[in-house]
């Protein structure tokens, strides 16, 4: 099973990141019995250099766990993460160290991901110091990074608490960019911010990835934000990718019933459009990953479920020939 969608463009034609059958199980319990929780179940996708892939889904769908395995904050239970042609999923922390320069992460809560006892200079320069850059040079580069993310270098000696949420997230981004990474995993980078500040950070990330040619895995639950920043999008449900493809296709003509329901559930800031809209309201809640339903895991909530959906898990395939989009559904919408 592969999630390569058509021919690649870009300078070196190969994907920067190739994720194959990535799986993560956590030990868990169901009642008195031991039951492993399969948080991520066979996720595969490619990411080209300079490309942004949005990873969307509701809480517990495994999107953050996927991101953490890719930067190796977690070691996957099974599957592989091939970065620039090299499988990094089983590398030791020591062997990973030189690669950390190229793989960086931006977190959701800017304040809790910045050490309150360190100055901004120290926080931003830290990844450089770890990589052996002399202190004076690291500080100089930290000043440049501050400007790059729209902060003033004079604030380098302040502590994180002196900054607002949006500014703190800029610091988190500066830290992620310090070592000149090629791939950024951004896990809900704007969801803790106020609405009026979110747009600033979305704009900043968008500008930076263009200017620096960064590849980005953008993990978010907000589908409208993802639509702004991504080239492609992958929708996850209960640990699996149910739909992946070019943003334009997925948003304009969602093929998986879950994607359709998800998009129709997002409230539009437009009262007239809201009244005119036909909404698909799903019944029930997402099931627990400790006890996934048999067959297609979406079938208990799916308005189109048939017998085959209860028996067989659908594999990702291209519903409309020639399209750069794959869907895991027995009865995809192709209209």
């Amino acid at each position, binding site marked *: 099973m592969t999630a390569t969608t058509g021919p690649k463009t870009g300078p070196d034609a190969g994907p920067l990141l190739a994720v194959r059958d990535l799986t993560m199980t956590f030990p868990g319990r169901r009642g008195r019995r031991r039951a492993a929780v399969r948080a991520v179940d066979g996720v595969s996708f490619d990411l080209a250099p300079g490309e942004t892939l949005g990873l969307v889904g509701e809480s517990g769908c495994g999107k953050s766990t996927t991101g953490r395995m890719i930067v190796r904050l977690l070691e996957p239970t099974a599957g592989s993460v091939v970065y620039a042609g090299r499988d990094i999923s089983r590398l030791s922390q020591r062997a990973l160290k030189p690669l950390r320069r190229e793989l960086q992460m931006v977190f959701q809560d800017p304040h809790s991901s910045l050490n309150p006892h360190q100055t901004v200079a120290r926080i931003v320069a830290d990844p450089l110091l770890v990589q052996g850059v002399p202190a004076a040079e690291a500080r100089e580069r930290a000043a440049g990074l501050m400007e790059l993310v729209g902060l003033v270098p004079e604030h380098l000696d302040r502590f994180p608490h002196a900054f607002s949420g949006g500014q703190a997230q800029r610091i988190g981004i500066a830290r992620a960019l310090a070592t000149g990474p090629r791939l950024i995993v951004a896990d809900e980078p704007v969801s803790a911010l106020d609405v*009026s500040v979110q747009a600033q950070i979305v704009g900043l990330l968008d500008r930076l990835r263009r200017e620096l040619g960064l590849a980005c895995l953008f993990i978010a639950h907000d589908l409208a934000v993802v639509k702004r920043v991504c080239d492609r999008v992958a929708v996850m449900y209960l640990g699996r990718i149910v739909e992946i493809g070019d943003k334009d296709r997925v948003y304009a003509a969602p093929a998986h019933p879950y994607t359709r329901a998800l*998009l129709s559930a997002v409230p539009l*800031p437009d009262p007239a459009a809201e009244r005119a809209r036909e*909404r698909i309201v799903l019944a029930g809640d997402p099931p627990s990953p400790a006890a996934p339903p048999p067959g297609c895991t979406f079938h208990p909530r799916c308005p189109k479920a048939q017998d085959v959906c209860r028996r067989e898990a659908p594999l990702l395939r291209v519903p409309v020939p020639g399209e750069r989009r794959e869907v895991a559904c027995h009865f995809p919408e192709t209209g």
Partner: protein
Amino acid sequence: MAAEPPLLTVTGLTVTFPTPRGDVRAVDSLGFTVHRGRTLGIVGESGSGKSVTSLAVMGLHTGARVTGSVVLDGRELTGLPERDLNRLRGRRMAMIFQDPLSSLHPSYTVGEQIAEHHRVHFGSRRAAARRRAVEMLGEVGIPEPARRAGEYPHQFSGGMRQRVMIAMALACEPDLLIADEPTTALDVTVQAQILELLARLQQERGLAVVLITHDLGVVARVAHDVLVMYGGRAAEQAPVDALFTVPAHPYTRGLLDSLPRLDDPDDAPLRAIPGSPPSLLAPTPGCAFAPRCPRAAAAPAAERARCEDTGPALTASQGHLVACHLPLHTDAPAPGGPR
């Protein structure tokens, strides 16, 4: 509808918290009304005072100085003794919160918790109160209500817990429901269910609802009227369609422009509002939005000084109430109302 007096009338509501660094005025001379069968959406960012407002209406502020007037169905609530307030809370006005788990007792079954509520306010017998609890759980769409009434809060999912909270809030048939970010902790597909449930219950019962949220999409879906708060004050108030189509306050305009929209075909760059929401610890004498306001920045020095030095009063303009020295409506030609 216009003939009937509003169920809730709030005037000059001011909430001040004494702190070691001086008084913090979290809400400043706020006023609004809500009629039966209507939903008022109160929108604002963190620190705008929207949640403090809801707690003040319910009289749930300890340690804060609350002045102004809150009139529920002709009865003044500010200054009422705690005993009298207790009789009204839960009975005539009820509240649901963002996180249902922290509002439910973990070691009582949900049925017991709803039933207790009913017994306290109506003095009903145990069996009758329990029947009422099961009935309410069914009404809010919980499957097998008789069995689920015997379960504990941790056995429910986030969406189901919020339904339990709604069942509890509505068990005593209140006239006013205050919902403070009721769907913020929920996934978007579950949010859609809860918003639909609230809309249905409101219609059936003619409830007046105050919905507090940061999500303009949620407001567009369920509110009839909208109050936009900024820095503890009302920035703009208008019927929902007017607010979204012809906003009068530059902040409202800025919020709408900075939102990414799912139905926007071209994905043009977002127009962000520069800066951050104000700190209540360091209030400015003028309009709280002035430091971030594009209209103030573009105005001649004298007008800009007015924005920075004097707080604008809330004034009526084409069906909106707006607190701004440089409202967007002065540019609109139509003198008879928005076109």
